[in-house]
C-alpha cells in the first residue's frame, strides 16, 4: 500500500494509511488556522445529527431528538441539543427583544437583554426533558434517541428569577407567574411562585455561549426538574397572578389522563429515570467479552443517589458506578463493567434519587396510570441482546 498516494477511496488504497505506512494526512499540512472561525464536527461525523422523523405531518409544531446513544458524558453539545417548538424557531434580534414583567408587582417593568445580563449571574448544569418522552403504547422507539431523545443537559448561565421578580417587587397575593414566549404561538405556562423564588433562572447562555435559537435565544426560563415545555423559550413576558391561567398547554396538552377519565393537571416534576445508552437499540456487540455498560440517569427531584443495572432480564441487579460530580437535576452518567458471555439476555437500569424514589417498571406505571396517560413515562427500559450481538427494544416484543 505504500506506493499509493493521495486520498484513498475504497479498501485497497485505504490500507496505505495503516501501519507500517505513513497515512496521507501526515504528508501534507492540514487546514490552516482560521478555516473555521466557528468550528464544526469532522465530516466523518456527519451522520451524528438530531433525530428528526422524515414523515411528520408538519414541521412547525414538531420535535427533534438528541442522538443520545452517540453522546458521552453529561453535557449535550449545543448543536445536538433536543428541540421542541410549536410554531417554528423565531429569528429574534436581541436588540429589539424585551422582557415585560407585570401583574401583582409593585412596579411593572421592561428589561432589555442587556439589562438581564447586568444582574448577578449564576451558572448551573441542568437537564431538560420533554414530558412526553416516550408514551405508554407500542411500538416504542428502536433506539435510545427514538425512545427518550427529548432530553438534553447543558450548563446554563443567567440570573436567578427571584432577583428579577424582586426588582419589580412582588405583592403579597402573588402566587403564580405566567411566562410567555415571543414565538408565533406565544407559548404560555403558569408556574407556581415557590418555584420562581427557588431555583428558577432566566438564562441567556448554554454551554458558555449564547442560547441557540432553537433553545430560546435570546432569553429563556429554566425551571430545573420541571417538564421541558414550562421552560419557556424566547421569553418575553412574565405576568404575576394569583391563579394559574389554564392555558391550552396546561389543559388540552401536558395533562395526564387516567383510565377513569380523570386528568391530572399541573404535573410539573420529571421523576427519576435512567436509560442504558451503550449497548442500546440499534447497536451491535462485536462479540462476547468485555463491554462497558454506560448510561444516564436524572431526577427532577434532586440528585441521583444510585443506579442499579441488571444483565439477566431483571433477576438480579448490581450497583453501577456514578461519574462525579453528581449534580442536582442534571444528567448523571453511570457505568458498569460487563463481560458478555455471548448468550441472549436483557439488560436494563434503574435509578434511585435522593428522595429514595425508585424508577418504576412500565408495567407498574400502566397498572396505575393506564396507557392513555401519555406524559411523564419514566419507566425502566429493557434492551434485548440477541445471540449475534444485536440490541433491540425488549418492550416491543
Amino acid at each position, binding site marked *: 500500500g505504500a506506493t499509493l498516494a493521495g486520498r484513498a477511496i475504497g479498501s485497497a488504497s485505504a490500507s496505505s494509511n495503516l501501519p507500517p505506512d505513513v497515512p496521507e494526512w501526515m504528508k501534507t499540512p492540514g487546514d490552516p488556522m482560521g478555516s473555521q472561525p466557528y468550528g464544526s464536527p469532522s465530516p466523518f461525523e456527519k451522520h451524528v445529527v438530531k433525530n428528526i422523523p422524515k414523515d411528520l*405531518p*408538519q414541521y412547525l409544531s414538531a420535535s427533534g431528538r438528541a442522538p443520545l446513544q452517540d453522546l458521552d458524558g453529561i453535557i449535550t453539545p449545543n448543536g445536538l441539543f433536543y428541540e421542541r417548538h*410549536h*410554531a417554528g424557531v423565531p429569528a429574534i434580534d436581541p436588540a429589539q427583544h424585551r422582557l*415585560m*414583567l407585570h401583574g401583582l408587582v*409593585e*412596579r*411593572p*417593568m*421592561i*428589561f432589555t437583554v442587556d*439589562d438581564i445580563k*447586568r*444582574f*448577578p449571574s449564576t451558572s448551573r448544569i441542568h437537564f431538560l426533558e420533554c414530558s412526553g418522552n416516550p408514551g405508554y403504547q407500542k411500538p416504542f422507539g428502536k433506539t435510545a434517541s427514538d425512545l427518550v431523545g427529548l432530553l438534553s443537559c447543558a450548563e446554563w448561565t443567567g440570573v436567578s428569577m427571584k432577583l428579577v421578580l*424582586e*426588582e419589580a417587587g412582588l405583592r403579597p397575593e402573588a402566587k403564580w407567574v*405566567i411566562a*410567555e414566549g415571543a414565538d*408565533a*404561538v*406565544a407559548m*404560555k405556562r403558569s408556574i407556581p411562585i415557590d418555584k420562581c423564588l427557588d431555583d428558577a433562572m432566566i438564562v441567556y447562555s448554554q454551554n458558555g455561549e449564547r442560547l441557540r435559537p432553537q433553545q430560546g435565544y435570546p432569553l429563556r426560563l429554566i425551571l430545573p426538574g420541571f417538564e421541558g415545555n414550562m421552560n419557556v423559550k424566547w421569553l418575553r*413576558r412574565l*405576568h404575576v397572578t394569583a*391563579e394559574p*391561567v*389554564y*392555558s*391550552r398547554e396546561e*389543559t*388540552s396538552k401536558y395533562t*395526564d*389522563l387516567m*383510565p*377513569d*377519565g*380523570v*386528568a*391530572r*393537571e*399541573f404535573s410539573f416534576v420529571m*421523576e427519576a429515570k435512567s436509560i442504558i445508552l451503550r449497548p442500546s437499540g440499534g447497536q451491535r456487540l462485536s462479540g462476547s467479552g468485555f463491554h462497558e455498560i454506560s448510561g444516564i440517569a436524572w431526577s427532577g427531584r434532586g440528585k441521583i443517589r444510585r443506579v*442499579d443495572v441488571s444483565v439477566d432480564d431483571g433477576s*438480579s*441487579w448490581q450497583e453501577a458506578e456514578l461519574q462525579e460530580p453528581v449534580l442536582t437535576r442534571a444528567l448523571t452518567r453511570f457505568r458498569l463493567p460487563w463481560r458478555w458471555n455471548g448468550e441472549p439476555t436483557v439488560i436494563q437500569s*434503574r435509578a*434511585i434519587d435522593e428522595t429514595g424514589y*425508585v*424508577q*418504576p*417498571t412500565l408495567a*407498574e406505571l400502566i*397498572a*396505575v*396510570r393506564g*396507557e392513555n396517560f401519555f406524559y*411523564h413515562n419514566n419507566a*425502566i427500559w429493557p434492551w434485548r441482546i440477541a445471540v449475534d450481538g444485536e440490541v433491540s427494544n425488549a418492550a416491543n416484543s
Partner: protein
Amino acid sequence: QSPFGIGRTATPAEIAGWNIDVGPDGRGLPAGSGSVSHGREVYQNQCAACHGDQGQGGVGDRLVGGQGTLATSKPIRTVGSYWPYAPPLFDYIHRAMPQNAPGSLSNEDVYAVSAYILHLNGLLPADAVLDAKTMTAIKMPNRKMFVDDARPDVNNSACMAGC
C-alpha cells in the same frame, strides 16, 4: 425600591399591547362579540384546511367530538370533550391561530370562530353570539374531571437478587 436599579417602568399602554392573557374566569376577554354563523365563515376560510371542514382534524388537531370517550381505551380529547374552561379557547386562537398567521384575526373573528367550534361540540346553539360574558358563563362538560398531580404514584422496590 429596585435593589439593582436595572430596567425601567412599563407603561400601561405597553402592558395593554402585550398582555394577551385570558384567564379561565374570562379575565382579559376583550370587548366585542361574534356569532356562530359568522364563525362558520371564518372557520371555512381560515381553519378548515388544517382542521377539516367538520372539525374532524387534519394537519391540526381534531376540534370536535369525543365526549364520553375519555374513560375508554381510545380517548378523543377535543375542545368539546376535554377542555376545562371556555375562555382559554379565545386565548389560544387569538395568540396562535391560524398557524400560518397567528394574531391576524380580529377580536370579533376570534369570538365568532370560538362560538362555531363550541357549537360544533354541542355547547352553543346555532344562533348564539359569544362575548366576554357569555363565553365566561359556559360550563365545559369535562371541567370537574381535573385533579391535582398525584405523583409519586408508583412504588417500585429496589430488589437486588431473586427478583
